[in-house]
């Protein structure tokens, strides 16, 4: 069974160089304490059960006792201890995903099958985060081996793993071949072999899916979906994602302080048109930060909060003082035209999205210039230096409504609160949501939060995309989850003999 990845992976989920392509392989190789359940709630993986303490300041995880590493060593709480205390939480290690565990102060081993996570503040989402690219690494390989990021026999070769498949060989620039792990704790996987083929070009991936060289892939280039729908032997499956696109209006720019301006811009952008043109209809309008996939918490009543209404946008802008039209067709206030530059990172669908938004804004008299930048330079300017006026991007996050890191006042400036919107009322709601892990108790908090966000627009929410997977008819057993989450169930997949 072959599937494509865009580049050579790094076989270590915490490695600073583990980018998107590594995700898919690492989720197969390294079990985490939890994994995404088929209903998106965290399901047991290497931990059979867990419980939060009454004061919410710690979580206890009971580990399975029948898990072995692919080299025969038993999996114990020492591995969890080492992974977190010595690798993830270490301040100068620079582990990928470190920011997700800022609430964890340390991990203690109670006995070989029990580990306790001690927190510096309540963190209801911990199990979901432990299911999110948080595979456990073997202590007996890394202890005493020096810099974990330089252990290339592991990271770029044949690592020691707990998953249903283990690495057979790694050919740089070409493929990573995995074979079945017969001693996998949940039973023998149905497939013998799993091949991750390095195919960098999106069109080549499509060509290979059409010719049968690949059995499953994510269709990044949604424009080709019609061609693939008509292909024999393939089916096109839409999947839900925990992702939303947004437009950040930098709050250090006084023009964007006025909520009416942000709302006006929200009305001015024709999001349906963007979804049709760019996502080929595979997406829904977003007016808040919780995605529809999180069914327990998503509030669908907000769906029509901001229909496409340029007239309303102009009215709101006029209220905010942007009325008179200057000679260049742009709105003016205090003699200054309403124009700014949007920085565009060259990745995914950002470029055409910005082009459409630019035209939408022009229609209501706002002049946006586009500054297309190569990705690394863009990150430096926008994320590291926060030197921008407006920019479009997206967030992907674990299957939990806790979105504090992206909205907290404390996260403005250097943290993940990119626009820098600061609001004590919002902070309060976000903190409350972290305190209890009971969904019934959290739901009203997050309903309130969504309504508040839709009103105040800390980010200008754009849309929730869907993922399109192209699956060969010979491949069976793939759950109805986006491919990243589906990788946790790869032991259930099988190939039909045609």
């Amino acid at each position, binding site marked *: 069974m072959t599937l494509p990845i865009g580049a050579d992976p790094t076989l270590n989920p915490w490695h600073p160089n583990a980018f998107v392509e590594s995700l898919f392989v690492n989720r197969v190789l390294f079990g985490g304490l939890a994994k995404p359940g088929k209903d998106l709630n965290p399901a047991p993986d290497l931990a059979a059960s867990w419980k939060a303490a009454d004061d919410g300041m710690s979580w206890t995880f009971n580990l399975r006792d029948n898990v072995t590493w692919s080299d025969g060593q038993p999996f114990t709480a020492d591995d969890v201890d080492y992974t977190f205390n010595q690798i993830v939480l270490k301040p100068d290690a620079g582990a990928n995903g470190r920011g997700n565990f800022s609430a964890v102060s340390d991990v203690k081993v109670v006995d070989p099958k029990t580990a306790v996570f001690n927190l510096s503040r309540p963190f209801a989402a911990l199990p979901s985060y432990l299911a999110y690219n948080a595979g456990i690494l073997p202590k007996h390989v890394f202890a005493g081996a020096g810099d974990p990021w330089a252990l290339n026999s592991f*990271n770029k070769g044949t690592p020691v793993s707990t998953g249903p498949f283990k690495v057979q060989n790694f050919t740089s620039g070409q493929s990573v071949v995995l074979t079945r792990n017969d001693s996998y704790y949940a039973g023998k996987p149905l497939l013998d072999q799993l091949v991750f083929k390095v195919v960098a070009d999106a069109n*080549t991936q499509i060509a290979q899916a059409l010719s049968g060289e690949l059995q499953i892939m994510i269709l990044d280039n949604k424009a080709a979906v019609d061609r693939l729908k008509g292909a024999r032997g393939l089916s096109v499956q839409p999947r839900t994602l925990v992702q939303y696109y947004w437009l950040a209006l930098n709050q250090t720019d006084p023009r964007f302080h006025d909520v009416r301006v942000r709302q006006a811009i929200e009305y001015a952008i024709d999001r349906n048109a963007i979804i049709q043109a760019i996502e080929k209809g595979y997406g829904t309008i977003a007016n808040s930060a919780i995605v529809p996939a999180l069914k327990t918490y998503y509030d669908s009543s907000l769906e029509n909060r901001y229909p496409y209404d340029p007239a309303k946008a102009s009215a709101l802008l006029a209220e905010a003082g942007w009325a008179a039209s200057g000679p260049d067709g742009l709105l003016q206030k205090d003699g200054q035209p309403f124009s700014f530059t949007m920085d565009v990172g060259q990745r995914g669908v950002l470029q055409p999205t910005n082009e459409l938004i630019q035209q939408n804004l022009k229609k209501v008299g706002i002049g946006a210039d586009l500054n297309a930048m190569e990705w690394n330079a863009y990150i430096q300017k926008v994320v590291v230096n926060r030197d921008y006026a407006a920019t479009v991007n997206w967030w992907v996050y674990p299957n939990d409504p806790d979105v504090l890191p992206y909205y907290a006042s404390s996260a403005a400036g250097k943290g993940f609160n990119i626009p820098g919107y600061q609001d004590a009322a919002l902070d309060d709601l976000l903190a409350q949501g972290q305190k209890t892990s009971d969904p019934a108790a959290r739901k009203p908090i997050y309903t309130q939060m969504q309504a508040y966000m839709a009103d105040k627009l800390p980010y200008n929410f754009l849309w929730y995309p869907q993922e399109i997977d192209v699956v060969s008819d010979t491949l069976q057993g793939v759950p109805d989850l986006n491919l990243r989450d589906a990788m946790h169930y790869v032991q259930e997949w099988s190939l039909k003999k045609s």
Partner: protein
Amino acid sequence: MLLIVSAITFFMINLAPGGPSALMRFDVTPEQREALTRRFGLDQPVPVRYLQWLAGALHGDLGTSLTTQQPVLDRIGERLPNTLLLSGLALTLSIVVGIPMGIASALRRGKPTDYTLSTLSLLGLSIPAFWFGIMLILTFSVTLQWLPSSGVATTGADFSLKDRLQHLIMPTIVLSTAALPTVVRFTRSAMLEVLGQDYIRTATAKGLSRTVVTYGHALRNALVPVISVIGALVPRLVGGAVVTEAVFGWPGMGRLAVEAANGRDYPLVVGITVVIAAIVILTSLLVDLAYTWIDPRIRLA
């Protein structure tokens, strides 16, 4: 020479805005960025880093790649044979097909053959290589499904010469458009120049058969400028490989260079440039040697 190349590249790439990809992720915290900066040694000033690199390089250690933590030399070594294979084949194809085409063109000057060959050569020079590649993929991989569209070989399968050749055909053809037309044109003009010379006419007048004249005398002399052109074509082939490798997903140095530049993998970029410069210098030396062999009258000055 290599020193200058390495120095220029090192300083240039370090000037580029943005930093290594590991630091430039959306979800990286400032603490992580600082920690990684120190780990990668990027908190030291550029000249210091260059000297450190140089010290290592003189011992054969070209540093550690920032995007994978592997030694640069290893990463280059993984990809170099693929590029050499592709470029070498493209060059061979260009010579083996181009020289006869050039000769034919020269011998039939002004006739339809000449026009056709010349036009085809110019077409080869004019067509954007990546567009040509995409059109080939559309035709042969997607529509006709005769040839695979990317990679060196079919993954997971055993080694098969036929499989390798199938993967090689299209990229080689596309890459040779960088060299073949030039070889044809140069051979043609060199042959024409030589054929017009007095001693050729003398030989023909003396009654030697046309064939002997052509292949014996004219060719030998015409080959001299052609050899020099081949030397100049090597950089063009290596440069063309960047685009060809991108289109056909060929795991070679060209793609590695683009990835390294985009990912600001400083040691890797410098390493690749130095290696390529070394290859080009080596090739020109070989070409010079070939010169002396072809025409013993030329001595190395």
